[in-house]
């Protein structure tokens, strides 16, 4: 419990750093993003929008500390002002519409990628030196391919040539968004290609990590003891080797998750998927700083939550971490 509390404290601290970084970046970067934006709109912005922009990106008339406090106020109220790429929607609305797409897509892809990759890695390590192990160069190649490049080829083959799946988007336009079977079926159908892209290209990372740990674990004395005990192969592989071997994968979750999320953002753009990645891309193109910083904050928080969950799972699987 103490360990978990400490972990939680660490994530709170990280969140604070991320949020402060978000505050600092526009202020230390060359140029004045707020002025740029205001100029772009040639005085068509409402005074309240201008004020929100100033809070987020620097006011020339108040002290840095005061700006920092105002910034925190807007973080807690979720008031990130108006989006410029999606003018006149507010940043909150834009994010609200897109975040669930990304959340569901990435969560399921991460889980599937982890399970399949770790499972294959377990087999590859267990049968190191046999044909299963030759999967490793193949998946290494797959994970070295740029996500977006692979995505475009997948689109060409399965959406354009074979016409099995839709070309882009998140759901069929003739469906209304909501909790109805037609929409859900359509959303699932549209998610297949992006999901396959992310899973296939992220698999290699999980696989090689698990395989190496599995091979290392197999020469541990406790695995040899399990063999000496005459336990079934299945029992040795799962309860003795794999359960120990997967612990580092879980503790290295942060790093892998970063890659998966980074890759999925670009993948979303290729599929024009209505998630955060596409929105972030549009925001970056339109220099929509309020939207960008809000998305960065949101993604950071999501990554932190995912890591906290991984840590809880870790504590659950490894009794040694449960006490200090």
């Amino acid at each position: 419990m103490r360990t978990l509390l400490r972990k939680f404290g660490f994530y709170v601290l990280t969140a604070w750093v991320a949020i402060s970084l978000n505050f600092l970046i526009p202020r230390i970067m060359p140029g004045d993003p707020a002025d740029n934006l205001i100029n772009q709109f040639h005085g068509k912005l409402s005074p309240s929008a201008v004020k929100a922009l100033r809070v987020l990106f620097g006011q020339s008339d108040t002290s840095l500390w005061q700006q920092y406090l105002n910034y925190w106020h807007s973080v807690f109220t979720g008031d990130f002002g108006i989006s410029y790429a999606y003018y006149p929607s507010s940043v909150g609305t834009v994010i609200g519409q897109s975040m669930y797409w990304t959340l569901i897509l990435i969560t399921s892809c991460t889980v599937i990628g982890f399970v399949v990759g770790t499972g294959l890695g377990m087999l590859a390590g267990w049968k190191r030196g046999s044909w299963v192990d030759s999967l490793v160069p193949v998946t290494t190649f797959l994970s070295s391919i740029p996500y977006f490049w692979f995505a475009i080829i997948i689109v060409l083959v399965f959406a354009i040539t074979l016409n099995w799946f839709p070309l882009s988007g998140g759901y069929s336009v003739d469906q209304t968004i909501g909790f109805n079977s037609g929409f859900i079926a359509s959303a699932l159908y549209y998610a297949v290609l992006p999901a396959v892209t992310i899973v296939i290209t992220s698999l290699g990372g999980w696989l090689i990590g698990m395989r190496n740990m599995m091979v290392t674990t197999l020469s541990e004395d406790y695995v040899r003891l399990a063999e000496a005990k005459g336990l079934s192969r299945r029992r040795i592989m799962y309860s003795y080797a794999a359960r120990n071997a997967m612990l580092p994968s879980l503790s290295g979750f942060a790093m892998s998750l970063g890659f998966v999320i980074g890759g999925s953002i670009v993948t979303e753009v290729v599929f024009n998927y209505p998630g955060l990645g596409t929105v972030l891309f549009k925001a970056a193109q339109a220099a929509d700083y309020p939207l960008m910083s809000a998305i960065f904050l949101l993604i950071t928080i999501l990554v932190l939550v995912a890591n906290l969950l991984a840590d809880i799972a870790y504590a659950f699987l490894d009794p040694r971490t449960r006490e200090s």
Partner: protein
Amino acid sequence: MAIRSAALAEAETTADLVDGPSRLWRRLLHSPLTCAGLIVTLVFLVLAVIGPWIAPYDPSTVSNSATAAPSFAHWLGTTQNGQDVFSQMLYGARASMLVGFGSAVVTTVLSVLVGVTAGYLGGTGDELLSLLANVFLVLPSLPLTIILAAYLPHSGSLGVILVISVTGWAWGARVLRAQTLSLRKRDFVEAARATGEKTSRIIRKDILPNQVAVIAASFLGTVTAAILTQASLAFLGLTDVTQWSWGTILYWAQVSSALLTGAWWWFIPAGLAIALVGTALSLVNFGIDEFINPRLRQAGIGTKKAQRAQVRRRWTRRVKYRRPTGARPATVPFTVDSTDVVLDVRNLRVEYVNGTARTPAVNDVSFTLRRGEVLGIAGESGSGKSTLAYAITRLHKPPAEISQGEIVYTGPDGSAVDVLSMPDEQLRGFRWEELSIVFQSAMHALNPIMRVGEQIEDVIRAHRPGLSVQQRAARIVELLGIVGIPADRAGSYPHELSGGMRQRAMIAIGLALDPEIIVMDEPTTALDVVIQRQIVEKIMELKDKLGFSVIFITHDLSLLIELSDTIAVMYGGKIVEMAAADDFYQRPRHPYSRGLLASFPTLGGPKRELTGIVGSPPDLRRLPTGCSFRPRCPVAFDDCSTVEPALYQLHAPDSGPSEAACLLYAEGAQQELAMGEVK
């Protein structure tokens, strides 16, 4: 190398990090995959350097042949504007590789600075720096990179390099910090510190050379990540799209819907190049991984090769092994004259196979274990005693292979079976039911994430599927009681027990099925003397009560003399002397045994002058001709270098029968025996 990795597999494995860069190179060039990776990387690096000079066209020059397929004039075809794709690829290689390697250099410098400083300084500085690294590690880097890049549009390669380095240094720093921390505690660093060497010099001379492999791995990983990141940014149009890089090519191809219009030659090469460089670098990294962690070189135990346990199959003696049905017969105390053999090992030979070279670690070893007997096997490290222990249960791993011999087990009902010819399923039933093992270090032999009770329960469940949950629980309590562990400790994890308690838990697991034989491989070596005594007394007490036979393996001869009925001494993979423990102590026959006995004080008995054995244990790959102890033997004579001594039967009038492999006892040399003993 085979012996080396085999020794690592047999003994406690420690990563051999204290090796210089030259060994790393040799190791890398050894593996074909790693070599391929190195070559591909080099080819791309060379292309990146000379690309612009050998490019046939200017990459931006527009021509009339728009979207032309690959031809002799345009190897990779042309773009929509008639630009030569091959030239763009060559120019692009420079930008992509520059960003890749440039970011890796900056990132690695940052990682090394932070990691080594944190690890070496320790204390508050370390905590703050590690915290910083951990925070940066969790921050999602690509979104951050995208945002930073959006603030720095058209900043060129340098801006991208900086952005990638700022977001990517944390991983390497964390790994290097952990490395430095463990290196700092090594003897040679401590020694350098004690002699008052400058910190900067210690770091340069002692710490960094030992981290070359780790630094290289993190460097190459960053190259791949940076090339991918740069490609993503360029593809999204967030870098200067007029500067040619592989990502920019993909950007223009995508903007012009190259694939939709069928211009695959425009789109495919850049992606493939990125994937190729990434794969090549990963392959080199795998080589480095195997260098850092030698265990990665072993075959998995799930392979057919390993499953067969590397026994040369002979099906001559197929007596079916049957599980014992009733309770075991009442035990008779062991006497020296007993002929009730429970395990008969005949001419066992275990070899480490490395290509065509075969190195025997156990060479033509024969012995018998009688019911209720304690057989002590003594020997220096490298004498083959642990390999022997594993071979008896077929737990040895490739590259070890049993090439000859038989191991016949005789059950209490008189049925005999050859362990080496058992099929897998039968072997599984035999293991633990008839023969269990207590490992050297309970700390490592107990599964760290499984409760002690569960580790006893699973062996019962595997072998006695008929027992109910309650019966199993009762048996666990009974077993823990036998070894003196409170019953409520069944729910504890190994790390929650003390060292002595862990070793007793190991013994409880060993007793779970009431086996006929327990092999104990240095069961007390890792414990302090007081606990050692408790454990040994417990083992002897249990042996008398339960009547199992013991093969006790250790280098601690005084302990062995005390508890064994019979002692076998191993040297260079062979048994060189075997005798009843008392006779052995009173009258060691082999010069090596005499040396061993003279090299430590015994607990009781008269004072003696302690002498060691000169020289070091033999290299099994290059055993001397004749007697392998000859180079260290104080009484060696001419024949010893040509004649390999067999194990001669000795019958002295004042002691029991014994055997010794020394030419002193060869037929016709019995007179010299007397002389030898006078010495």
